[in-house]
C-alpha cells in the first residue's frame, strides 16, 4: 500500500483527484473487493442455474418447454460424454454406432424402430473411428444392460493403413471425469449454448442434436436454400477428394493380416457376441460421386478386399462364439438412390431426396437401411457372405456402368476433383 501511495504522490492526476484520493480509505478498497467477489460469486451461481434450467445438452431435465428449450443445439465439445450420459438415461436396446454418416442418417426415433418395439439411441460420433465406438460401448455397458441389437456403420477410409505404420497408443489424457460435468454447467460454451437453445426454438432449420443422439443436419436446408445443393456437394467433394488422395491403398500392417481398425472391429464384435447382441455391420451407401472418386483414386480393388475382410471377421466371430449373430450389409453401389442427380449450379430450388452431399445420406435413405436390417425384403442392400462377394462386385460394376450412362457428369467431375486434389497434394 505504501508503495502505491508513494507513487501516487508522484503521479500527475487531474485537478481535484488528490483530495478524492486522500479521502479514499482502505474501506473503499475493501468495499471494492467485496463487491467484486459478490459480482463474481452471484454471477457464477446465476449463470450455472440458467444453464441447468435451459439444459442445452439434455442432462438435467428440469424444464421441457417448446417455447424455451425443447430443441437443443448440437454440442461442440464433450459430445462423447454427453451422448454417453444420454444413452445411459435412455437405456436403449438398439444402439447405432459409427461416424457422422450414421449420426446424421439413422434416426433412432424412426417409427419403424418403435413399431418393432425397439428403444434406440444413436451413439455415432462425427469424425471418430471404431476405437471411439468401442470405448463408448464399453462405458455404456458399465451403467446399462447390453443392447439387444447394434447397427454399426463401418467406414472404408478408416481401414486404410500404411503397411509400415506403427500402432498408435490410445490417448490417456482425456478430460477428468468431473471436468466435463463442470464445463457443461459453467463455461462460456455452456452459457452460449443455453442462449442458443432459447433462440433455436424459433429457428426454421436449427443445427440440432436430438434427445436420442441424432444430428439430422436440418441446418443444411438453410445452406441449400441460400447456395443450392450443388455448392454443398461441390464443397464437400473437394474436401473428400483431398482426403481420399492422401489415403494409402492398403488394409494390413506389413507381415500381418490385421490393422488397428480390424483389431478394434474384432474386439467390438467379440464384446457384443459375449453380450448376445445381434450385430449388423453396415457398409455405407455412398453417393455415386464418392464411389466414383474412390474408383478414380484407384481404391476400388482395396474396397473389394475390405469387404472380404469384413465377411472374414464376421465368420470368425461366429466361429469363436457359436451363438453370435453378425450380419454384414453392403449398401454401397451406384444404383437408384445412390445415383441421385445433383442439382445444377445456381439452382437453389431443387432439393435432393436422399443425400445432403456425397458422404452423408438423409434420414429418408437411413429409413431404407433400417427397413432392410429389420427384415423387410427390399432390393436395397446386400447381405454379404463369402460366397456372394464376387457377384456383389459384378453388381456394383453393372450399376456403375448404368449410372455413368445416365449421369456422366458425376464421373467427369470426380475425375477432375481427384486430379485437382493430387495436383495440390504436398
Amino acid at each position, binding site marked *: 500500500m505504501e*508503495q502505491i*501511495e508513494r507513487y501516487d504522490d508522484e503521479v500527475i*492526476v487531474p485537478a481535484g483527484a488528490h483530495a478524492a484520493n486522500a479521502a479514499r480509505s482502505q474501506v473503499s478498497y475493501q468495499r*471494492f*473487493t467485496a463487491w467484486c467477489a459478490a459480482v*463474481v460469486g452471484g*454471477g*457464477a451461481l446465476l449463470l450455472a442455474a440458467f444453464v441447468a434450467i435451459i439444459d442445452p445438452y439434455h442432462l438435467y431435465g428440469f424444464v421441457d418447454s417448446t417455447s424455451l428449450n425443447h430443441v437443443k443445439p448440437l454440442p461442440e465439445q464433450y459430445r462423447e460424454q454427453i451422448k454417453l450420459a444420454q444413452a445411459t438415461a435412455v437405456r436403449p436396446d438398439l444402439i447405432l454406432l459409427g461416424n457422422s454418416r450414421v449420426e446424421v442418417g439413422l434416426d433412432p426415433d424412426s417409427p419403424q424402430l418403435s413399431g418393432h418395439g425397439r428403444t434406440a439411441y444413436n451413439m455415432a460420433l462425427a469424425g471418430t473411428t471404431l476405437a471411439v465406438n468401442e470405448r463408448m460401448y464399453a462405458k455404456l455397458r458399465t451403467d446399462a444392460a447390453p443392447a439387444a441389437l447394434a447397427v454399426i456403420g463401418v467406414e472404408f477410409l478408416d481401414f486404410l493403413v500404411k503397411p509400415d505404420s506403427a500402432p498408435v497408443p490410445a490417448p490417456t489424457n482425456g478430460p477428468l471425469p468431473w*471436468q466435463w460435468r463442470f464445463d457443461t454447467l459453467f463455461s462460456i460454451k455452456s*452459457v452460449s449454448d443455453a442462449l442458443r437453445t432459447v433462440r433455436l426454438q424459433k429457428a426454421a432449420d436449427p443445427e440440432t442434436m436430438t434427445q436420442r443422439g441424432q444430428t439430422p443436419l436440418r441446418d443444411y436446408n438453410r445452406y441449400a436454400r441460400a447456395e443450392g445443393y450443388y455448392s454443398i456437394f461441390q464443397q464437400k467433394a473437394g474436401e473428400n477428394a483431398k482426403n481420399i488422395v492422401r489415403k494409402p491403398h492398403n488394409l494390413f500392417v506389413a507381415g500381418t493380416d490385421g490393422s488397428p481398425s480390424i483389431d478394434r472391429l474384432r474386439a467390438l464384435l467379440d464384446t457384443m457376441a459375449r453380450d448376445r447382441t445381434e450385430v449388423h455391420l453396415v457398409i455405407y451407401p455412398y453417393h455415386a460421386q464418392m464411389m466414383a472418386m474412390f474408383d478414380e483414386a484407384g481404391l476400388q480393388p482395396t474396397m473389394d478386399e475390405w469387404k472380404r475382410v469384413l465377411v472374414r471377421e464376421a465368420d470368425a466371430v461366429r466361429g469363436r462364439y457359436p451363438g453370435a449373430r453378425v450380419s454384414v450389409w453392403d449398401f454401397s453401389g451406384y444404383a437408384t438412390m445412390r445415383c441421385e442427380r445433383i442439382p445444377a449450379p445456381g439452382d437453389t430450388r431443387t432439393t435432393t431426396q436422399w443425400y445432403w452431399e456425397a458422404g452423408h445420406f438423409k434420414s429418408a435413405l437411413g429409413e431404407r437401411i433400417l427397413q432392410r436390417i429389420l427384415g423387410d425384403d427390399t432390393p436395397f442392400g446386400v447381405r454379404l457372405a463369402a460366397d456372394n462377394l464376387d457377384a456383389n462386385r459384378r453388381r456394383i460394376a453393372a450399376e456403375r456402368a448404368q449410372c455413368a450412362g445416365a449421369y456422366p457428369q458425376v464421373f467427369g467431375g470426380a475425375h477432375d476433383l481427384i486430379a485437382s486434389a493430387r495436383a495440390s497434394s504436398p
Partner: protein
Amino acid sequence: MLFNSFTFLFLFLPITAIGYFLLARRSHVRAAGWLALASLTFYGWWSYFYIPLLAGSIVFNYWMGQRIGQAAGPARKRWLTAAVVIDLGLLAYYKYADFFISGVNWLAAADIPALHVVLPIGISFFTFTQIAYLVDTYQGKVKEARFLHYVLFITYFPHLIAGPVLHHAEMMPQFDKPASYRFSYQNLAVGLSIFAIGLAKKVLIADNLAPHANFLFDKSDMLSFASAWGGVLAYAFQLYFDFSGYSDMAIGISLLFGIRLPLNFDSPYKAANIIDFWRRWHMTLSRFLRDYLYVPLGGNRKGPVRRYVNLMLTMLLGGLWHGAGLNFVVWGALHGVYLAINHGWNAVADTLRLPRGRVWGVFSMALTFMAVCVAWVFFRATSFDKATTILHGMAGMDGIGLPASIGLQLGPLKGLLEQWGVSFYLGGGSRFMETWQWVVIGGCIAFFLPNTQQIMGRYETALGTMAGPRLAARWQLWQPSRRWSLYIGAILIGSLLSLSRPAEFLYFQF
C-alpha cells in the same frame, strides 16, 4: 501451472498469499522463504525434473556474483566472462544444440543425429535475468546480497516462466521493504483489477483469435489476399493480447504481494515507427538487449556504419533468442533492417525538416504496424516456404478471393467485384467471417482503447517509463468504485467461464 487455470486461481494463489501474509507477521525472512518455496512449487508443477537445473543455476550465479564482487582488477572481468560463458553455454545446449547440428549437417552434408533436447521452461528468462545480475555486479551496481532474496528474485513466480526480464537493482530493495510484507486492501483491489484485465486479454481475446491464426499457418491452403491478411492479423493480435495479458497478470499478481514488476508493454501497435515499437514491445527484453548487447557492442558511439551493424547484430541475436530456427533469424534481420531504415529516415527527415503532422502520424503508425505484421509471418510460420507462400497471398499474388457465401450477401456488388478481379470460392465463409470479426475486435481494443497502465493511471503499479501518455480519459480511469467493481467482476466472470479451455502462453516456448 497456468495463471489462467482454476488450480492457480483457487488453490495455489490463495494458499501462497495467505501463507505469505501470515508468516510475514512473525518474520519477513520466513515469508520470503515461503514465497520462494511456493515459486519453486509453481515451477515444478510443469516438471520437477528441471528444479535441480534452476536451483543449480541460482547457486552457481550467486556464487559467481560473490566472486566478481570480491575480486579486483582483471580478475573481476575473468570471473564475469567465465560465468557468462557458462550461462550462455547452458542456454545454448538446451536451446540451440539441435539447430547447430542441423546447420552442420546442412553445410557438411553430414548425418549427425539430433539430440532432441527438451527446453526447460523459463530457462531463457532466468538465464538472462542472472546475466544482467552478473554484469550489474561487475559494474558495481549491486548493493543487496542476501541469498534468500536472490533466490526469490530469480524464482519469484509471477515473472519466472515468461518474464518480464528483471533487474536485480529494481527488485532486491523491494524484497527488503517492510511494506512489501503487509497485507493491503489497496494492493489487493488494484492488483486484482490488473490481473482481471490481463486474464480477460488472454482468455477472452487471444484464445479466441488463436484458432483463426492457427488455421492460416497450419492448415489452410487458401491464401487469397483477404484470408492471408485475416490470418496474419489474427496472429498479430493473438500474440499481442497473449503476451500483454500475461504481463498484466504478472504485474497484478505481484502487486498482491506488494512488489512492483517492470512494465513490459505500452500499446506497441500504436507506435509511430519501429524504434518506438521496440520501446513499447517486450520492453524488458529490449532493455536487456540494449544494455547488455547493443551498448557493449559499441552502440552508436563508433559511427553510423557501426551503429547499423550493431543494430543488425542485436536484432539477429534477439531473433535467435526467440527460437532456434531460420525463421526467427529472418524475423530478427527484418527488424534490424527496419530499424536501420528508421534511423536513416529520421536523419533525412531532420535534415530536410519534413513536416510531421497528424495525418503523417496515422500513416506512420499504419506503415509500422504493417511492417511488424510482415515480420510476424516469419515469426509464426513453421517453415520459410510457408512464410513466403503467405506473403505471396498478402501481396495479392494469389488473387483476391472471397467466400461464395459472402458473395451471396453482396447483391449487385458481387458482379462489380468480379469485374475488378475478385473471385468467389466455395466454403470457408464462417471461418472468414469469424476471423475478421475477431480481428476487428482485437484491432479496436489495441488501437482505440487505453492500455492497462493508462486505465490504472492514478497508480504507479509498475516500474519503468511509459512511451505513450500516462493517463486515460477521466471516465476510463480505474477507481475503487461500485461501477468499476461491476466492470472487473463482469470480466472476471467472463474469464472464469473461459478457463475450461486452458491454453498455454505463446511466450512460454521462448
